[in-house]
């Protein structure tokens, strides 16, 4: 098991190399050269050249790449062009806020999805099955940033029951576990959980239905095992597939929370990325993308390893 995890980690190296290339290329995809974004158009040429030298933009691209990679690997992501603060600390604090929201949203989505999916797979009546199918269809089809706006309209504007934006009361910095901060979390959590809810419900329902039609279930029923005990066997067999989808959804939720964070002005990575794009703050754009991609890779790896632990039939490598 440990060897398998290690081998997967080694396989990740070339992918990570490719990811770093792509993230590096982001800066050079931008129209114009990266310096023109931060200096006024009428800046004297010497100043521009000086700045280019300072940031290393006067060197050939491969040299720039390896210099950037070397510095980045030591944890130095550069300085934000907008605020002048280190990118690493800006991304770190934003990432924490994103994780808080992500944990709440995945917990809500996965719990509901497992309950609904299992209920639909077991349901004798077509109505329950249809209803759950409808919920998962809405989950995968709804534009979640629109749902966020609708939630704000209903619960903040019309009912005035919940705060429309922000992470906490106006004078508070950071996040604490109290009612005021939790109230701010309710709407973003719901909006963020709809997609994983839809996708995972669908997977749980179809996987459990498939497992229920297997012969071993009939055998267990024939020998008189109680339904509750059979359910345990069924869940154990359905778990690997569901886990894989959940892992992917959790990662996508963190990467995709940008729209929700923008609607609710939640100070996470998505919000940071969005403001970086409009200030043309390329170091922040690079740093955030790199951190999120790295997290996504490690998450996928972890899910893969857990999957092999849960299901000994999967022999890999």
């Amino acid at each position, binding site marked *: 098991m440990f060897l398998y995890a290690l081998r997967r980690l080694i396989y990740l190296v070339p992918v990570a190399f490719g*990811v770093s290339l792509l993230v590096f290329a982001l800066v050079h995809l931008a129209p114009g050269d990266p310096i023109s974004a931060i200096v006024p158009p009428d800046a004297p040429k010497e100043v521009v050249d000086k700045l280019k030298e300072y940031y290393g933009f006067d060197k050939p691209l491969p040299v720039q790449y390896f210099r950037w990679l070397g510095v980045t690997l030591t944890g130095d992501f550069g300085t934000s062009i907008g605020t002048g603060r280190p990118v690493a600390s800006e991304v770190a604090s934003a990432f924490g806020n994103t994780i808080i929201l992500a944990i709440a949203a995945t917990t809500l989505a996965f719990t509901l999805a497992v309950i609904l999916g299992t209920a639909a797979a077991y349901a004798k009546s077509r109505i329950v099955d249809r209803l759950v199918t409808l919920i998962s*269809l809405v989950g995968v089809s709804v*534009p979640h940033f629109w749902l966020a706006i609708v939630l704000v309209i209903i619960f903040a504007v019309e009912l005035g029951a919940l705060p429309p934006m922000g992470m906490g009361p106006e004078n508070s910095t950071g996040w604490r576990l109290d009612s005021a901060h939790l109230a701010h979390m309710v709407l973003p959590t719901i909006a963020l959980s709809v997609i994983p809810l839809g*996708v995972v419900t669908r997977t749980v329902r179809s996987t459990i239905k498939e497992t229920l039609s297997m012969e071993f279930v009939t055998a267990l029923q024939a020998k008189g095992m109680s339904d509750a005990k059979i359910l345990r066997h069924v869940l154990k067999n359905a778990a690997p597939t569901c886990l894989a989808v959940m892992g992917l959804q959790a990662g996508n939720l963190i990467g995709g929370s940008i729209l929700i964070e923008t609607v609710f002005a939640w100070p996470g990575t998505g919000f940071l*990325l969005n403001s970086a794009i409009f200030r043309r703050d390329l170091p922040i754009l690079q740093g955030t*993308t790199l951190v*999120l991609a790295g997290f996504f890779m490690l998450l996928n790896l972890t899910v893969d390893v857990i999957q092999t632990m849960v299901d000994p039939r999967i022999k890999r490598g």
Partner: protein
Amino acid sequence: MTIQSPSLELGTALVQPIAAAAGRGYWQSVARRLRRDPVTLVCAGVLILLVASALAAPWLGLADPYKTSMIRRLYPLGSPGHLLGTDELGRDMLARLIYGGRLSLFMGVTPVVCALLIGGLLGITAGFVGGKTNMAIMRVMDVFYAFPSVLLAISLSGAMGAGTENTLLSLTLVFIPPVCRVSESVTTQVRGFDFVDAARASGAGTLTIVRVHVLGNVLGPILVYATSLISVAIILAAGLSFLGLGVKPPEPEWGLMLNTLRQAIYVNPVLAALPGVMIFITSICFNLMSDGLRSAMDVKA
């Protein structure tokens, strides 16, 4: 709005091989099954209506979608002369919603079609040639898979700058890897079947085998997958415009309209939510169509 890749790793068979000779009969039976599926028919009808009205917008006798009016701002639904009210600059909402379908649908369908061509070609090549070519192509795809799809789209668009072309480009890049992966795995499976050896033994060239046997078998799963991707693409394109990274004002586009109408949620909330309803309807129809196609084609994915 996440790209769901079919569970390929667990060795689920994506295709039951279709004998090439029975090809025509197969598509006929698919068409027959689709005709008997009321849900798919209704969705197809709604989508045809949306596309047709978007295309025929100039001849529907609608108000000018660009004409602003400072005194007629944010009229509620059902105002005389403005059936669905007016937006924050006094432009007719009905006209803008119908005209908006042009860009929104275009930006949802085009990247998927492009990704289908490029990703399909890459995937079939990788699957059929195998060996080092397969390695090279699929490892490059792995790099793109290391990004959450929304993040990749936003980072690319953000770096390249706002604009319709850049949105199309970044969305195409986001959709190539999943299409490539599906077509690669199906092609690899098909290549192992006996009828491919039989065809080769009876003198068929590589191109013929790819065209008849591989394409014939890849098309089904890919079409089903692409239909559901369109729904993702429409939401993602609207999302980019919503962030200000896609279509530029004053073009009517559903995502951008949602963005600019956000300031109106305290004045006229129903109006502010309207463009999202259009996105929702379109995306739900494409998802249901995909489900219908899946069961009609008997594709497991």
